[in-house]
C-alpha cells in the first residue's frame, strides 16, 4: 500500500469502517512511513479531542414534558372525536357528582403525598436514593431482575438468607396484585443487599432490603412507608421495620407505590 492509498482510507481507518485485511495493510504502511504516521496521529488526536471536549446537549426536561403533553393531548382529542372507536367515554364517570367528590378527595390526598416527598427525606439519604435508582434501572435495562426466579416466597427467602448476613422478609402479595418475580443480591450503600422483585401489570418493582445502620447503637424502630423521592419517572418509598431498611422503587405512579409499600409493610 502506498501513501496515496493509505491516506485515502485514513478516515475509514479512524472510524473503524475497514475490513481486517485493509486495517492490517494500513498498519504495515504506517509502521514504515513517518509522514503518513504523523497525519494519522494528528487526525486521531483531533478525534479524541472532539470526543472529549465537544459539548453534548441533552434534551431539557421541560421539552420532554411538553412533547409528551402534546402527544397526550392529540391522542385525547382523537379519542373524543372518534366515539365509534371509543364508544364508552372514559370521562363519563366524571359527570357523576359523588364520583367528582371522590376524585377531588383523591386529588387532595395525592397532592399531600406529593408534597410530603418534597419535605420529608433527610439529605443524607440522597446517596442511597441515587444508588437505588441506578440499581433499579440497571436491573430493568439489562433484564437481570432475579438471580433466583421464583414466585414462591419459600424459595426466595432461604436463597437470599444463604447469601446474606441477614434474612429479609419475603411476602406474598399476589392477592394485592403484586406477584413476586424473584430475588437477587445487589450492592447498595457499600454492602450486599437483598433485592426483591415484584411485578404490577408490566411494571417492575424492586425492594432493596438491608440492616439499618443504627446510630449510637439505639434500638431499631419502625417507621411507616414514606415517599422519599420522585424523579426521572421513578417513585421511591422508604420504611424501616425490625432493624431493616426498605427502599421500594418503581415507575409506578405515587398512589400505586403507596399501596404497594403499605401492603408490603403490613404483611411482613
Amino acid at each position, binding site marked *: 500500500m502506498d501513501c496515496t492509498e493509505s491516506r485515502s482510507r*485514513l*478516515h*475509514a481507518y479512524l*472510524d473503524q*469502517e475497514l475490513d481486517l485485511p485493509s486495517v492490517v495493510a494500513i498498519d504495515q504502511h504506517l509502521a514504515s512511513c513517518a*509522514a503518513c504516521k504523523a*497525519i494519522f496521529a*494528528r*487526525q486521531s*488526536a*483531533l*478525534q479524541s*479531542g*472532539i*470526543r472529549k*471536549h*465537544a*459539548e*453534548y*446537549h*441533552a*434534551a*431539557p426536561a421541560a*421539552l*420532554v*414534558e*411538553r*412533547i*409528551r*403533553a*402534546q*402527544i*397526550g393531548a*392529540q*391522542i*385525547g382529542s382523537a*379519542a*373524543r372525536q372518534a366515539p365509534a*372507536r*371509543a364508544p364508552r367515554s*372514559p*370521562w363519563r364517570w366524571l359527570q357523576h357528582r359523588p364520583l367528582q367528590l371522590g*376524585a377531588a378527595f*383523591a*386529588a387532595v390526598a*395525592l*397532592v399531600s*403525598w*406529593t408534597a410530603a416527598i418534597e419535605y420529608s427525606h433527610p439529605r443524607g439519604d440522597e446517596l442511597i436514593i441515587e444508588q437505588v435508582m441506578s440499581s433499579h434501572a440497571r436491573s430493568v435495562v439489562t433484564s437481570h431482575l432475579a438471580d433466583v426466579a421464583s414466585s414462591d416466597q419459600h424459595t426466595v427467602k432461604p436463597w437470599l438468607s444463604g447469601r446474606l448476613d441477614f434474612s429479609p422478609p419475603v411476602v406474598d402479595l399476589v392477592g394485592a396484585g403484586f406477584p413476586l418475580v424473584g430475588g437477587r443480591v445487589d450492592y447498595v450503600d457499600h454492602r450486599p443487599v437483598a433485592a426483591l422483585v415484584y411485578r404490577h401489570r408490566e*411494571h417492575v418493582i424492586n425492594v432493596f432490603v438491608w440492616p439499618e445502620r443504627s446510630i449510637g447503637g439505639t434500638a431499631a424502630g419502625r417507621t411507616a412507608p414514606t415517599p422519599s423521592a*420522585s424523579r*426521572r*419517572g*421513578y417513585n421511591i418509598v422508604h420504611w424501616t421495620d425490625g432493624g431493616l431498611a426498605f427502599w421500594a422503587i418503581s*415507575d*409506578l*405512579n*405515587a*398512589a*400505586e407505590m403507596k399501596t404497594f409499600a403499605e401492603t408490603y409493610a403490613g404483611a411482613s
Partner: protein
Amino acid sequence: MALVRAVDDVCVPGAKPGRQEHRSAGQGEALSTDERSRVRRFEEIFATHLDAAYNYAHWLTRDARNAEDVVQEACLRAFKFLDSFHGESGRAWLLAIVRNTYYTWLKTNRVEALSVSFDEETMAADGGELADLESSFGSIDQVLQQGDAKRLINDALARLPEEFREVIVLREMEDLPYKEIAAIAKIPLGTVMSRLSRARKLLLQYLQQAKQES
C-alpha cells in the same frame, strides 16, 4: 427512562407528564389496544433517542430555543408518521425526521443568513490547497492541551458549514457508523466519507488558526 410509566403518561388525555400523582389509576384504559401499542412503539424510540435528537438539532441550529422548536415539531411528526417506521434503526429514523424538520424550519425562518457563509466556507475547503495545508500543519496536541481546549474545539465545530458539522456530530458525538449517517443525511456512503474528511481538515485548519492567534 421509564418507558411503561411514560406510555401511561402519554396515554392519559390532557395529563401533565411528570406529575403523574394527579391522575387516578384506570384512566389509561381510555385508549384502545391499538393506540396503546402505537404510543408504546413511539415512546420506545422517543425515550431512547431524544437526547440524540436534541443534540443534533442543537448543533444544526446552534441555538437552544430553535433546537427545542425543531425537536418538538419533529417528535410530533414522528408520532404522526409512526407507521413509516419499519423497525430498522429507531435512532436513524428519528434523526432523519429531525433533519427534515430542520430544513423546513430553515426555509421559513432564515434562508439567507446561512447559505452565504456556507458557500464561502465550502469554497475555501475545496481544491488542492488542502493537501498542502495538511502537511504544513504542526501538531495539534499543543492546542488540545491548552486550558481552553474545550472552547477552541466547540468554536471550531460551530464554525463548520452545517453539511460538515452534522456528519461530525453524528460520527463523533453519537458514534454512528457511516451507514446510519448516510441514511440520516440521505447521501451515499462515499459522500459521508468525503464530508468527514473535509470536515476534519477544516477543523484542523480552524484550530491551527486559533493557535496562531493565541
